[in-house]
C-alpha cells in the first residue's frame, strides 16, 4: 500500500490492554518469585476461630472452612499454577519441536509415518491421556505437568511442522544454500531460529491454557495433593460452597481468568508484532 505504511509504528505504540496485561503479569511474577512481598500470612495457617469469613479489609478474599486466608493461598498458589503452566508448555514444546522439525524436514516415508503418529496422538482424547497417566503415576504436580504437557504437544507439533514447512520455502533458505552452506548449517542458522520465532508467542498462550487445563483435572479430583493452594485445587475446594460462600469459588476463578487473559493478551500482542516484523 502506498501511503499507509504504518503497522510498524502502530505495533510499537502500547495499547492500554497491553499495559494492563504487563502489569498483571508483573504482579504474577512477584507472586511467583517472592510471594512474601504480597502477603505476610502463611498460606497453610489454619484458624478455626475465623472460618468462612466473607471478603473484608483484613481478609481481601475471605477465608475458607479451615480459616485460611484465601488471598494468601491464591498468592502462594501462583507458583504451582505457573509451574504447571510453564512446565507443561515447555514439555509440550520440546516434544512438539522434535516431532515438528523431524516431520517438517523429513520427506517421504518418515514424514508420512510421523504425520500418522501425530494423527493417532490427536485422535486420543486429551482427557483420557491425562486419566491414564494419572492412573499410572498417581496424582502429583509432576504428573499433572506431564499429562497436560503431553496432551497439548500434538497441537503444537502440527504448528511447528507447519512453521517449518513455511520457513523452508523462504527465499533466504535458498539464498543460503546458494552461498554454499551445508544443509545442517542452513537448518541451524536460519530454519531453526526462524521457525521458532512464533513459538515464543505460542508459549505465552500455552501457559494460560495449561493452567485452565490443570484446573479441569483438579475438578476431576486428579490435581495436586492438598494442602497445595494450586488454583485448580482452590476451585475444586470451593465448589461445594458456591451457594453459601461464593467467594471461595468466584475469586480464585476470576484470578485464573485474569491471569490467563493477561498472558493470552500478551501472547497475541507478541504474535502480531512478530508477524508484523516478518512481513
Amino acid at each position, binding site marked *: 500500500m502506498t501511503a499507509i505504511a504504518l503497522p510498524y509504528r502502530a505495533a510499537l505504540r502500547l495499547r492500554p490492554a497491553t499495559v494492563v496485561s504487563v502489569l498483571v503479569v508483573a504482579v504474577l511474577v512477584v507472586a511467583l518469585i517472592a510471594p512474601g512481598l504480597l502477603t505476610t500470612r502463611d498460606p*497453610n*495457617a*489454619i484458624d*478455626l476461630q475465623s*472460618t468462612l469469613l466473607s471478603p473484608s479489609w483484613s481478609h481481601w478474599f475471605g477465608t*475458607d*472452612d*479451615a*480459616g485460611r486466608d484465601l488471598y494468601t493461598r491464591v498468592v502462594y498458589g501462583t507458583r504451582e499454577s505457573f509451574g504447571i503452566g510453564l512446565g507443561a508448555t515447555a514439555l509440550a514444546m520440546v516434544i512438539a519441536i522434535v516431532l515438528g522439525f523431524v516431520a517438517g524436514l523429513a520427506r517421504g516415508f518418515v514424514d508420512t509415518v510421523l504425520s500418522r503418529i501425530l494423527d493417532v496422538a490427536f485422535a486420543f482424547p486429551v482427557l483420557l491421556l491425562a486419566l491414564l497417566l*494419572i*492412573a499410572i503415576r*498417581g*496424582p502429583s504436580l509432576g504428573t499433572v505437568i506431564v499429562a497436560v504437557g503431553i496432551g497439548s504437544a500434538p497441537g503444537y507439533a502440527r504448528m511447528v511442522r507447519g512453521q517449518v514447512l513455511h520457513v523452508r520455502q523462504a527465499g533466504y533458505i535458498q539464498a543460503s544454500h546458494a552461498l554454499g552452506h551445508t544443509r545442517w548449517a542452513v537448518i541451524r542458522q536460519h530454519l531453526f531460529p526462524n521457525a521458532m520465532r512464533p513459538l515464543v508467542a505460542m508459549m505465552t498462550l500455552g501457559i494460560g491454557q495449561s493452567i485452565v487445563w490443570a484446573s479441569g483435572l483438579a475438578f476431576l*479430583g*486428579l490435581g495436586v*495433593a*492438598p*494442602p497445595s493452594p494450586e488454583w485448580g485445587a482452590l476451585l*475444586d*475446594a470451593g*465448589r*461445594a*460452597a*458456591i*451457594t*453459601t*460462600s461464593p467467594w471461595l469459588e468466584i475469586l480464585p476463578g476470576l484470578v485464573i481468568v485474569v491471569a490467563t487473559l493477561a498472558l493470552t493478551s500478551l501472547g497475541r500482542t507478541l504474535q502480531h508484532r512478530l508477524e508484523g516484523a516478518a512481513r
Partner: protein
Amino acid sequence: MRIRHVVAAASGALLVASLAACGGGAAASGGGEKVQGGTIVYGHEQEPPCIFGGWVQQAYISRNILDSVVTMADDGSIKPWLATAWKISDDGLTYTFTLKPGVKFTDGTALDAQAVADNFAYWEKGGNSTAKVSIDPYFKAARAIDATHLEVTLNKPYLPLLQMISQAYFGIQSPTALKRSDQLNCEDPIGSGAFKVQEWKHGQEVVLTKNPDYTSWPATAKHEGPAIVDTVRWKFLNDAVSRYSSLATGETNVIYDVPTVNWKDAKTKYDVQQYITPGKPVSIYLNTVNGIFTDKSVRQAFAYGADRKAAVEAAFHGVIPYEGNPSVSQSTPGYNASVAGAYAFDQPKANELLDQAGWTTRDAAGYRTKDGKQLAVKFTYPAGSVFTTEGATVLQILQQQWKQVGFNVTLIPETQAETFAGKYSGPKAYDAQPWYWTSPSSAILWIVWRPDTKESPNGSNSAFYNNDQLSTVIQAGNSAATTEEANAKYAEAQQIIQDNAPAVGLYTQTTSIASARNLHDVWLEKSQGEPVFADAYFTK
C-alpha cells in the same frame, strides 16, 4: 407361634434425627390430603456398576427391590421380614426360620425356604463377597426343611448373625433369575420387594416401578400393602451443588447426602434426616508393622497431637459428629462410650511421648528427628467419593497441628483407580490411612481386626495389627450366649484397641436425606441407612 430372640440395642445408639421444622414429618398431620400414586424423583449420588453387589452404593438401591430374611428396628432390635419367626438352638449353632407363606418373586417364582437356601449358597460362592465376609467363618450351611422352614447351621456360635443378615447385601433374589446372564442380574435383579427395575438409563437414572403384588413388607414398615407411589426415579447426581439445588427447583423430591454447608438451610426448608452409620467409623489406621508407628508411644502421640474434634466440627460445619472411638461408631450396638474420650487434644502430652520415644531433635523445618530420620508420616486417603473435600479439609487442619508437635505429614490423595487396584494396601504403602466400614453389629471388629496371618490372611486389617488377646476377646463376643455378655466382650475389645492405638478415631460415617415437605414417610433403614420408598406418599 412366634419365638423371637430379640437383640436389645445399646440405648440411644441410633440417632435418627427427624428434624422437620414445622411439626411431624412422618404423619400427614402437616395438612394436605394423602395422594395415591405419583412419582418420587430421588437424587442420589454415585451410580453403581450393578444394582446388586457388596458395595454400600449397591445396597442403597437393592434395598428397595429385594427383601431380606429379617430387618432391624429403630432400637436395634431384629424384627420379622421374610421370616415371621425364628428359633435359635440352645448351643447357638442352629437357627430355624419360619418364612412368610405365599410370597412370590416378581418373576413369579415362589419365595420358599429352598429359594433362601439357594441365596445363601450363591453368596458363599462369591455372589456377594461382602455378605460372605460378614458371616464367615461361622456360617456352615442353609437347608430347607420344608417350603416355609429354613435351617441355618453355624460352625461356632455367632450372636450377630441376625443383625448381619438384616443388611441389604443379604437381599433374597429369585433363584430362577439368578440363572440368567451376568448382565441381566447386574441390571435387573429379581426380588420380591416393593419395587422392581423398569429401566436403567445409564448415566442418568434407574426407574423403579411398584410391585403391585407386594405382600412381604417388613415389620418395621409404616404401612401395609404395596408401595403407595407408582414410580421412583432414582437419579445419579454426582455434583453436590446441582443435587442440592435440584430440591429447591422442584426437580427432585428427595435427595441423598445433603452437603454440610447447606445443612442449616436445608433444616429450615425441608424435612431432613440424618443417620449415623453403625460399624467402623471413619478412623485412621496406623501401620503397626512398618515405619514410625511401630512404636506405640508414637501412635499415641499422633492421637494426642491434633484437635480432631475441632477439625471435624470446622470442616463439616458442625453437622457430622466427631468420633473418638476408632473401632465402632456411636450408633453400633455394643459401643463403648468411655473409650471415645481417650486421647483428647493434648499437645504437651504428645510432645512428652515423642521425647520419651527418642524423637528429641528437630530439623530446620521444625520436624522431629531421631538418628537422622525425620518423623515423617505418609498419609494416604481415598479421595473423591469415600473421602470428600470436607474430609480432606479435616486432614489439612490436622496436618498443620501435627506439624506443631513435629510430625511431617504428607497427604497423598489416592485416585479411585489406585484405591481399587490396591496400590496403597500393602504394609509398605503407607503409615496412616483412614477408612470406614458400615456394619450393623460390633462384629465388624472381627472383620477388621482378625489377625492377618499367612495361613489365614485378612486384607481388611489395614493396621496390620495382630493381637491375639484382642482376637480372643472379639471371638468370645461373637460367640457369647447373651447380648450383654457379647457387648461386655466387645467393649473390652474396643478398650484394647484404644489402649494400643493401632487406629485413631475421626468422625462417624453419616448419611442424610432431605425431602420436600409434601413428601412423607421416606425413612432410612437401620442396618446401613438406605432410604426406603415403599411407604412414601405425597400430600396435596
